[in-house]
């Protein structure tokens, strides 16, 4: 199959939906303000990005700044979650006494939805970047932690035996055997975590922050600018998709040794 027909396969459904939507919203069944046509959304979005006719009003030309402030919050919270989740996960998975002392607390905190921390986050951190970063951290931390623990616990005991037969110290076992053996699981956690991270930045921005894509989204809702709401939603989707793609790339570069040994590597 050629690359061209393949990309057609992928694009057919979204293109059909866009076309149907355009026709529907121009048909006048609903007032146009309630469901702006894709062409209108695209126009507003373009102005939001490039600022040529102020159709996005005060937001005109401010897209990059908005996207960047959201992305930085995601990056900060996610980085903290990744480092601490992997480190704590390895400790819990490896040492029984750490598991016994820390795990019960974690299992009690885990079911609490991260959004329910919003009031406390605002009280503790005020209205700015910090509560958003805190929420992103909460959302990404648990999936990364749980997957790391799972990866460590399911590491092949025989590999650990083989390495200790070659004189590995405990620290070397963790670094040269347990960590690489857990990497496929860790990456699974990192990918779930990045989704949670975007979700929580946007939530935090709607409530506790005065900038970013989530703030524009909520603010536009108050001003009945549903074209901007849709443009913000599309922006968030696109950025989430891009960051997940970046992690996927990093994953396949790191786990290249799996090629040929897993279903994932099958041509599809």
């Amino acid at each position, binding site marked *: 199959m050629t690359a061209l027909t393949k990309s057609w396969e992928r694009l057919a459904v979204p293109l059909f939906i866009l076309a149907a939507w355009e026709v529907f919203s121009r048909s006048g069944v609903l007032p146009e303000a309630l469901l702006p046509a894709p062409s209108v959304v695209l126009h507003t979005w373009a102005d939001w990005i490039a600022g040529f006719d102020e159709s996005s009003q005060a937001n005109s030309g401010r897209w990059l700044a908005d996207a960047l402030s959201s992305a930085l919050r995601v990056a900060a919270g996610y980085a903290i979650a990744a480092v601490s989740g992997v480190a704590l996960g390895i400790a819990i998975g490896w040492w029984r006494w750490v598991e016994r002392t820390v795990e019960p607390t974690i299992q009690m905190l885990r079911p609490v939805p991260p959004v329910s921390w919003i009031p406390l986050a605002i009280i503790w951190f005020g209205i700015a970047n910090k509560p958003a970063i805190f929420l992103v951290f909460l959302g990404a931390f648990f999936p990364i932690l749980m997957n790391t623990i799972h990866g460590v616990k399911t590491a*092949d005991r*025989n*590999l650990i*035996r*083989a*390495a*200790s*037969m*070659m*004189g*590995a110290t405990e620290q*070397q076992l963790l670094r*040269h*055997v347990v960590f*690489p*053996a857990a*990497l496929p699981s860790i990456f699974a956690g990192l990918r779930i975590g990045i989704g949670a991270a975007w979700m929580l930045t946007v939530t935090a921005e709607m409530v506790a922050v005065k900038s970013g894509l989530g703030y524009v989204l909520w603010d536009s809702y108050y001003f009945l600018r549903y074209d901007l709401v849709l443009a913000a939603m599309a922006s968030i989707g696109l950025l989430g998709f891009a960051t997940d793609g970046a992690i996927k790339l990093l994953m396949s570069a790191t*786990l290249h*040794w*799996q*090629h*040929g*040994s897993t279903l994932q590597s099958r041509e599809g």
Partner: protein
Amino acid sequence: MASIDLQNITKIYRDAKRKRDLLAIDDVSLSVQPNEFLCLLGSSGCGKSTLLNMIAGFEKPTTGTVTVGGKPVGGPGADRGMVFQQANLMPWLPVWENVAFHLRLKGWRKADRRRAAQEYIDMVGLRGFENHYPAELSGGMSQRVGIARALLLNPQVILMDEPFAALDAQTKMDMQEELVAIWQKQRCTVVFVTHSVDEALVLGTRVAVMTSRPGRIRELIDLDLPRPRDITSPRFNDHKRHILNLIREEGMQQRQGVAA
């Protein structure tokens, strides 16, 4: 040159689930001379791996002492090389990194590790596969990597737990020949676990036939057969008949023991 000494070894496994103790090894004393090739032969479950794992340091004897080169065994370590039934290669490392894993632990630079690995890769006939990953190797090739990895430690003692059990007949024969050649060249002491009488007779300078559970040494048999071993020679077959008889008796006794 290191000798191995097992003195009055017993091993009891605590079975917490069934609240019962299992006597796996019952008072085994055995000494292996430097440069000897000892084959541990016995039926499944008789405690061969248990005995080998105690020499390796993965298991502690319940009573008795294990010494290697005069020093008591405290745990696993690089003074003994171990080849497992499954090759147990790190799937994320290419062949040469697996072979040189010990040097990675010792903090050698990459170029030095690469150079050192080559000698052993050549020795086991894997030139050209240095950069393959374990997932891209056949079972026999993986097993060779495992052997090269153990040899790179330059150990005085090599412990092998049914390393060729999963291989086809032809590959097995090739590997046995290679192993004997390597052992003759490196002059190391080998303890080789197997449940194949032929394999024990092809490889060993001595065969220790074990009883069924609990494991004891039933008989130690010196093999003064010339190498390469001729599996059709009368003397080879005399030994084989004798050992098969021991095993048959052992099986009969066990069945009677169960019936009684």
